């Protein structure tokens, strides 16, 4: 129950970040979200490692906003805040318990089932991406040299192709099991 309450607070904070327009409020929410992640990770290095991709992405967004003439990087701050509040919220919720404690067909059951499927598919894709990028790095170990860029592009294209294939198979498997529209 305490975990669910904690997740609820984090979800409210994420919602506040979606609705806030004041850059100072957004900056405070983003900082709070980052600190929450670091506190939950236990170790500073592992917390920062988890946040690195979203921080890089937010940096890219901020530079686009700056190029577009925006005085404050609202979108980048909002992205960091929402993402960094949602990740620990998702970790706090015991999804399997939520699913088994609900009546099949109820709205909450459907939401939990959908999110569990998203989590499962994300893990499958993360595994695919990890293996493919390791294979690319082993095949073209010398960065920036001949073949490195083109192999990276082909590896990402293969990942996209495989993601579609896996999604199709996953959808078919759920359909056969009677889960789905």
């Amino acid at each position, binding site marked *: 129950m305490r975990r669910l309450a904690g997740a609820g607070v984090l979800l409210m904070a994420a919602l506040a970040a979606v609705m806030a327009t004041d850059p100072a409020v957004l900056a405070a929410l983003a900082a709070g979200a980052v600190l929450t992640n670091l506190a939950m990770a236990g170790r500073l290095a*592992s917390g920062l490692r988890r946040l690195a991709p979203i921080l890089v992405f937010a940096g890219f967004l901020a530079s686009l906003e700056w190029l577009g003439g925006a005085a404050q990087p609202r979108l980048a701050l909002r992205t960091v805040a929402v993402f960094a509040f949602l990740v620990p919220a998702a970790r706090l919720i015991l999804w399997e318990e939520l699913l088994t404690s609900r009546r099949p067909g109820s709205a909450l059951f459907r939401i939990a089932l959908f999110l569990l499927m998203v989590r499962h598919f994300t893990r499958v894709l993360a595994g695919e991406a990890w293996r493919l990028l390791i294979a690319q790095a082993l095949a073209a170990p010398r960065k920036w040299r001949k*073949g490195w860029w083109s192999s990276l592009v082909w590896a990402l294209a293969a990942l996209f192709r495989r993601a579609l294939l896996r999604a199709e198979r996953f959808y078919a498997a759920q359909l056969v099991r009677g889960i789905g529209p």
Partner: protein
Amino acid sequence: MTAIVEARGLWFAYEGGEPVLRNVTFAVEPGERVGILGPNGSGKSTLLWCLVGLYKPSGEVRLFGEPVHRKLLERVGIVFQNPEDMLFMPSLAADLCLPLLNRGVAPAEADRRAREALARLGLDGLASKDASSLSLGQRKRAAIAAALATSPELLLLDEPTAELDGRSARTLAAALLELGVTTLVTSHDLTFLGRIATRLLVLVEGEIAAAGPPEEILTDTTRLEAWGLL
């Protein structure tokens, strides 16, 4: 003579989990074909990833007498369990030429060596094919050819016969026997390991439970059953 692979006291656990490898110690000498035999989930693939530095175990790993570093991996050919992970370029020739071109080999020479590697695995004539148009057995052999194109001194194979039918597994074993490269292969396929391995290590729950020649390990049905391999 320096061992090609040396692992001493390896311990490894995934974040927040129980140890997957427990005090694993072994060596692979030049010219050996060592099979790591173990049931599903025994830590075979994890051990391979630890040997090439993708996972960081505690203990010591040395390849060719040196601690593992990125440059050293250019002397190693690694074959993934799923060949599709390795064959992502538009044609087999492009897949095989990539590591050579990246290392500065001239395109004509890279092409010659790629075709030679394909021929060694019985895949001549398929250089222009996209990997997705091949059978699984052909893709497995193509992945080995891709690893061989750079003339590695050590070949690491992760479950090469997974999902292969008997005939394809036999063809693969025959191809590996002809290569003459120091090989470390993980598998739970007793027949395949019996064909190719000169020595076996049995990995059970992350520990080396036995080591010895295949004829000794593979005939001990009582222990094989206890290890969950029969």
